[in-house]
């Protein structure tokens, strides 16, 4: 963090005459290399004493041009690049792309592939929330949660490695199904992990949730009203903590979520504590979803037959899924060729980030870390 303080009363821009800042006002640059930003985010913060007056996000420190890149990749290939966007829910990103292609082709995915996708997606969601829990503890000054959450993450990563071949960026989904069948150990190990998570969740509560110091840092901090959440386009746990029903799995079900029994977690308080509780409850909902499927994975093919070179019909296709952070939309404009004409990823983090200045208005600078921790940003997903 660099701190600048100008001695003169009012500093104005030489060209436009616009007032830049007044006396007693600090401008602090948080980032682009700051441990609490979970990546390379640059926030320019106007402060009056300790109170935040204004925040301006400066992005692009990890802008890799994935949308441009996808215009030259075939529909089989462009799936892999999306795992690098929101790498914590890489599997769900891949699923979104595959679903968009399948929707355009009118391709029917075998039920076995659907079940495999959902189980892996929910495992990804649990792993992502575990990491969020670890890091929000870390951001707010507790190092211990980090080690507890990574224990469960390792168990999930081992399953991913055994079935998909990679720990983090799996690239297991292909248009029309999944790349290969489940590993024979899969069901046994998933059940073991689910019991481990359920048994260990009380430890999470003992270490962090029940801690009064931690609770006081989250309660009544970073308030976001339901109207603002809608206006800023917030999705995911960040919006559900403000009472907005926006779970894509419920509203626009895909891959057979409509047959499953689970609850959409909604809290109405709108503060950091509500967002924290949404995520903690979502871990259990994901466990519940996997439990329904794990013993009844349908038999049959794991991949529908597709042509070697996939060509989408002309038109525009929009597919949305619920990642661990909210709604990911894949918007493909096709001109009938083997590559997309234009590919847009509506990322959940980008909209959630735009609400941070609103949440942090009038808060103290120390609370900004709590706000960013509970919104759970993944910066490469913002910049793409």
């Amino acid at each position, binding site marked *: 963090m660099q701190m600048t303080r100008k001695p003169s009363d009012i500093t104005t821009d030489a060209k436009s005459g616009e007032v830049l800042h007044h006396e007693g006002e600090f401008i602090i640059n948080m980032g682009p290399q700051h441990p609490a930003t979970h990546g390379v985010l640059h926030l320019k913060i106007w402060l009056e004493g300790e109170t935040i007056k204004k925040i301006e996000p400066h992005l692009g420190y990890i802008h890799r041009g994935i949308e441009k890149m996808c215009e030259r*990749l075939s529909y*089989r*290939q*462009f799936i*892999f*690049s999306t795992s690098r966007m929101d790498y914590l829910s890489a599997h769900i990103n891949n699923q979104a792309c595959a679903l968009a292609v399948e929707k355009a082709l009118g391709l029917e995915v075998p039920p076995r592939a659907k079940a495999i996708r959902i189980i892996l997606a929910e495992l990804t969601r649990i792993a992502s929330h575990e990491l969020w829990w670890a890091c929000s503890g870390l951001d707010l000054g507790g190092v*211990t949660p980090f080690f507890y959450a990574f*224990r469960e993450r*390792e168990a999930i990563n*081992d399953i991913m*490695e*055994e*079935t*998909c*071949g*990679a720990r983090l*960026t799996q*690239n297991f989904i*292909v248009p029309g199904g999944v*790349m*290969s069948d489940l*590993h024979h150990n899969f069901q046994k190990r998933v059940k073991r992990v689910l019991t481990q998570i359920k048994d260990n*969740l*009380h*430890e999470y*509560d*003992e*270490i*962090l*949730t*029940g*801690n*009064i*110091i931690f*609770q*006081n840092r989250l309660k009544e901090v970073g308030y976001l009203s339901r109207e603002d959440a809608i206006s800023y386009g917030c999705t995911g746990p960040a919006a559900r903590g403000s009472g907005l029903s926006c779970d894509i799995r419920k509203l626009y079900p895909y891959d057979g979520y409509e047959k499953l029994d689970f*609850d959409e*977690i*909604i*809290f109405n308080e709108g503060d950091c504590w509500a967002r924290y*509780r949404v995520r*903690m*409850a979502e*871990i*259990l*909902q994901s466990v519940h979803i996997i439990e329904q499927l794990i013993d009844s994975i349908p038999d049959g093919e794991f991949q529908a037959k597709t042509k070697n070179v996939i060509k989408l019909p002309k038109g525009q296709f929009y597919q949305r899924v619920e990642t661990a952070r909210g709604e990911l939309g894949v918007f493909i404009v096709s001109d009938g060729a083997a590559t997309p004409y234009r590919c847009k990823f509506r990322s959940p983090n980008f909209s959630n980030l735009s609400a941070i200045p609103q949440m942090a208005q009038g808060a103290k600078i120390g609370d900004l870390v709590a706000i960013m921790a509970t919104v759970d940003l993944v910066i490469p997903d913002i910049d793409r």
Partner: protein
Amino acid sequence: MVLITGYVKMNGTEINIKKTGFLKEYFGTIFTSLSSLLTGMKLTGYYFIHPNKIITEQYPDNRATLKMAERFRGEVTLPHNENNEHRCNGCQSCEIACPNGSIKIVTKHEISEDGKKKKRIDTWVYHLEMCTFCNLCIEACPSKAIVMGKKFEHSVYDKSQLVKILNKPGSKVMKEAEE
């Protein structure tokens, strides 16, 4: 909704102090926060005296027993048999399937015994420094010539060592894999 996670139990310890007086509130806050802190530290202490629950893996010492999963993607390999033969016939499907151009196959034309011109691989260049292990090349290979290797320790001091030539010198294509 609150019932499903365990924090209902913890909610009992939430600060619930009425305005009874400054001192009582002040010390009450200290007491509750200390007690909740100790609850967490009790758990840490539990693991401290239960060393059998430690999951730490002794990495460089356990290399002999460390086995990667069956499907683990470590590197692309081109297996050769004992006669120095491989299955790659140089169709370049993997090169086309690779999304980031980490495979380059240089082909040459060979004249076989019966006088026919045949396409054969000259060098099978694999850029390990660019590979993302997405498995698309393996899926695309029609003759199953390439497989994913299990080795993951690729650290080098020099970047140029990461560009690998997978076909061994003097290797030939297997009879059954031709065309």
